[in-house]
């Protein structure tokens, strides 16, 4: 589809450059994205700028012909570049009722104008549609000069195009990422994602895990595997936040045949590893428990989600946790053919 074929189409570059934020799977069915777009999209991006106009001294029969051949229901009236009003089918019906199709536009046109500004967000136009109950609005520029016309249909089309744009953006990202391992030739390609996790930073708790899961999906990992990694890495991330002195580093290494996640911190270290592996054992403070952490299930959960888990720890030195998930062949585009 060539968007330039229609004067109503909005410039793809424009949207691309300004937003380009990929959307989540859930956004797809999300009405709020449309609401967001009604603020992001501007009237001039969706309006028809190539508009037919009438003049005040034009006979109404001539306007009728313009409306008929262009299949539109109204046109603005320009008096020497100046916007004088609008003449629509309803006005023409009034003229017909009076049997005066040869009368001049100035006699029957609507002088009370409802206009929107071309650089207004489209929600302003939607508001004006609701308030005025009109089907089309005149768009003016900052000098009050005619810039175009906008209908509800233009808005719908513009929003749909923008949504489609968002989709393409995410698809493209996914496509690019999922071919990473095929496109880069080496004996062994590894993609390393590194996150610095701060101690006690509950505000950002889980962010790294969400990003890792998202990255894996983009790389073409099986959703089930991405979810297992997400859960394991979340528990590990929260352990850094809850239990370490100074936070630590969370690392995920993605290879075509396996995903290795690890955390490294510099203390306090675990005195008894056997103990922390028991379900229900926790050293979390009362305060942290009140937030719902410290169930003593973190490492148990990790073990359940990954194929291999290793903990090395030295009191006073720190802890290293390594988790590994193997990617079964033909299960993922992470695999090379």
């Amino acid at each position, binding site marked *: 589809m060539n968007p330039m074929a229609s004067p109503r189409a909005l410039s793809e570059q424009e949207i691309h450059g300004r937003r380009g934020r990929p959307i989540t799977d859930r956004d797809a069915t999300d009405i709020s994205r449309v609401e967001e777009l009604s603020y992001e999209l501007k009237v001039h991006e969706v309006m028809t700028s190539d508009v037919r106009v009438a003049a005040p001294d034009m006979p109404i029969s001539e306007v009728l012909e313009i409306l008929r051949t262009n299949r539109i229901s109204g046109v603005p009236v320009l008096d020497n570049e100046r916007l004088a009003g609008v003449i629509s089918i309803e006005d023409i019906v009034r003229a017909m009722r009076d049997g005066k199709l040869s009368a001049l536009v100035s006699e029957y046109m609507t002088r009370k104008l409802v206009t929107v500004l071309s650089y207004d967000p489209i929600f302003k136009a939607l508001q004006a549609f609701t308030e005025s109950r009109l089907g089309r609005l005149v768009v003016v520029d900052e000098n009050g000069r005619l810039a175009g016309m906008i209908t509800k249909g233009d808005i719908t089309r513009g929003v749909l195009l923008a949504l489609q744009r968002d989709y393409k953006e995410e698809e493209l990202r996914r496509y690019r990422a999922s071919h990473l391992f095929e496109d880069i030739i080496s004996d062994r390609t590894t993609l390393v994602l590194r996150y610095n996790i701060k101690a006690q930073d509950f505000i950002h708790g889980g962010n790294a*895990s969400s990003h890792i899961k998202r990255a894996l999906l983009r790389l073409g990992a099986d959703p089930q595997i991405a979810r297992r990694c997400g859960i394991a890495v979340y528990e590990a991330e929260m352990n850094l936040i809850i239990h370490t002195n100074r936070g630590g580093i969370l690392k995920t290494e993605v290879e075509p045949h396996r995903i290795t996640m690890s955390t490294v911190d510099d203390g306090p270290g675990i005195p008894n590893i056997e103990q922390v592996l028991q379900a229900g054992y926790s050293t979390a403070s009362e305060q942290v428990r009140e937030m719902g952490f410290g169930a003593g299930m973190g490492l148990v959960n990790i073990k359940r989600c990954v194929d291999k888990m290793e903990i090395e720890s030295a009191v006073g030195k720190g802890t290293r946790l390594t988790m590994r998930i193997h990617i079964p062949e033909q299960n993922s585009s992470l695999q090379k053919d």
Partner: protein
Amino acid sequence: MNLQQIIEQLELTILTEPRDFASIYPVGGYTSDLLSCVMAGAKGNYIWVTLQSHLNIVAVAGLLEVAAVIITENAQPDAATIAKANEQGVTLLSTPKTTYEIDGRLWELGIRLPA
């Protein structure tokens, strides 16, 4: 039973941005205030019932892709939590009822556990 019907039947307050709740069909439910238990017990498209209302429920709900979180006894998440939920596409619902009552009502409505 879709999420829209559940929201109506249980008179839940929607805290996050509206989405097409009628197209979401929860397949089960899980109740706990301990996040790691939720990580282990709740699954995608479950309803999670909890008293917790702080920011970290969003990460858990988002990673698990639960259908919605019902926060009981009028516990109020703060603005940052709601904003993050919107960002991650997580639906937060609220009720003055207790967790016990909500679980019972959900079970009655046929939200049980997948076979």
